């Protein structure tokens, strides 16, 4: 089934970078050494295409095999 409606399909490569985060920080009453507010996580960021590679590695049958017992 093709999606006929909804917002336009957005190419992965046109995804805006979120590295800077918004100007308004999350209140941070306890203050941390890094300060509060949304921002990118620590560590090196892999290349953009890595997430698509990660997606392609997912076994298409994985959800079919996935079974859980009912919880709350």
């Amino acid at each position: 089934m093709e999606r006929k409606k909804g917002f336009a399909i957005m190419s992965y490569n046109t995804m805006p970078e979120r590295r800077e985060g918004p100007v308004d920080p999350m209140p941070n009453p306890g203050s941390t050494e890094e300060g509060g507010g949304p921002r990118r996580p620590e560590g090196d960021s892999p290349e953009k295409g890595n997430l698509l590679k990660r997606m392609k590695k997912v076994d298409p049958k994985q959800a079919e095999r996935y079974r859980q017992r009912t919880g709350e």
Partner: protein
Amino acid sequence: MRLFGLETEYGITRDDLAEVDPVVESMELVRAHLTASFERRWDYAGEDPHEDARGFRVSGLAQDKEENEFVERDAHRPFSFHDMKSDLVLPNGARFYNDHTHPEYSTPECRTLKDLLAQDRAGERIVQRAADRRNKTLGGEHVQLYKNNTDFHGHSYGCHDNYLVPRSIPFFRLVAGLLPFLVSRQMITGAGKVGIEAQESGFVPGHFQLSQRADFMETELSVDTMHNRPILNTRDEPHADPRKFRRLHLIIGDANMCEYATALKVGTTRLVLELIERKAVPSLELDQPVAAVKQLSRDSDLKGVVRQKNGSSISGLDIQEQYYRAAVQTFTGLDEETDWVLREWGDTLTLLGQDRRRLIGKLDWVTKLWLLETFMQEERIGWDDPWLASLDLEYHNVHPERGLYLGLEAEGKAWRMTAEADIQRALATGPADTRGGVRGLCVRRFSDQIKSMQWERVRFIGGLLSPTLDMSGLFEPAEVNRCLAIFEAAASPMDALTAWNERKDSRS
């Protein structure tokens, strides 16, 4: 009174066995957290899911028959009920245990969203660390954990948000004020789901929903949580002085990967509860709330409307807008955190209506939909391809090198609101302004002298009547700070209790 927390049941798989025993796997996962042998400490007294907030006690729950069958089956296992539950209280005041065959992490009680987010993320790290240890024992990456709410075959497990509310608010007012809000909250807090399913039956591919839990909502009000699930759970288990408090136990929510979605889920719900307390909630009454939950979940264009009791129709966005406006009118300028919630709530509603691409990395369903559509374009597949449900599942994997959301976050495209230092601190200690912090401190300082623990109290070893720290009314931050200072400085639990009780006596 602001106090809230999250309970998250994780999905668990093991791929090296033809048949997996979920009881054993979940138990072993929790046990893997331990570096010493398991000691039974959780005190189950006071836990009674049969008490109903509508003012009565039910004789049975819908899940009792199934539960009894499990108990009978589990009775033949080579371990006890307590071994199977493996209930742990962690140094940060959290509870980590095997609940209904799912590893569950319950955050300590939090007073600020900042603390809640850090504690929730700490929970992800704790369960994944346990999986890493378990996998080391197994000799491979066989166990995987998922912070989601469905197995795509009709089995759901929960992420419950809890709020301490004054008992003085009549329950019927909570119901009336909350139902329209909860029906429409999924537009912000839904984790997104591929397909449609029903309780323990079927799976229909080819659809995308806002919410993982909507398919499992079957009634407006109920004390049940595993079958006949309600929009508003009526379980009356306050874990506090029952004369003064209720614990609102919401089971409709999805487990969020996006920190921003978690913050808005709890932040907006807290404000709506305060609106109800002040009798400032908008006057809305939906005709069929259960049908409306499913209808809105299956409308990712957000164009659909639901019927009100008065015969008119209203969109989900308009319902949220009405609550938002009432909150702005009532709470603007109250404090920094409230202003943040109001600003982001309003911006999110605007963007949902105008340019939701800007919510990628902030809201889970928007982020997941974007990932799936990108992938479909890349692979030239349609919505009926079973690969999409697998990608949906993997979005929630908490393994940092496998999970799709965590991959997105690692690329800097997810909205981070916690710092790594916040998470590290949450792994080690509880909030400094709630009794969760006191509970954690007791574990860190006097672990070998604790006889039993639960949300309201800590019992220490010694004497016929175990010396007990009663925290059923310990909610004022200043009192919590004093209690923490006493337990931090005391040489023994007895010294601490003596000092704490003397202080309380001198005040009375």
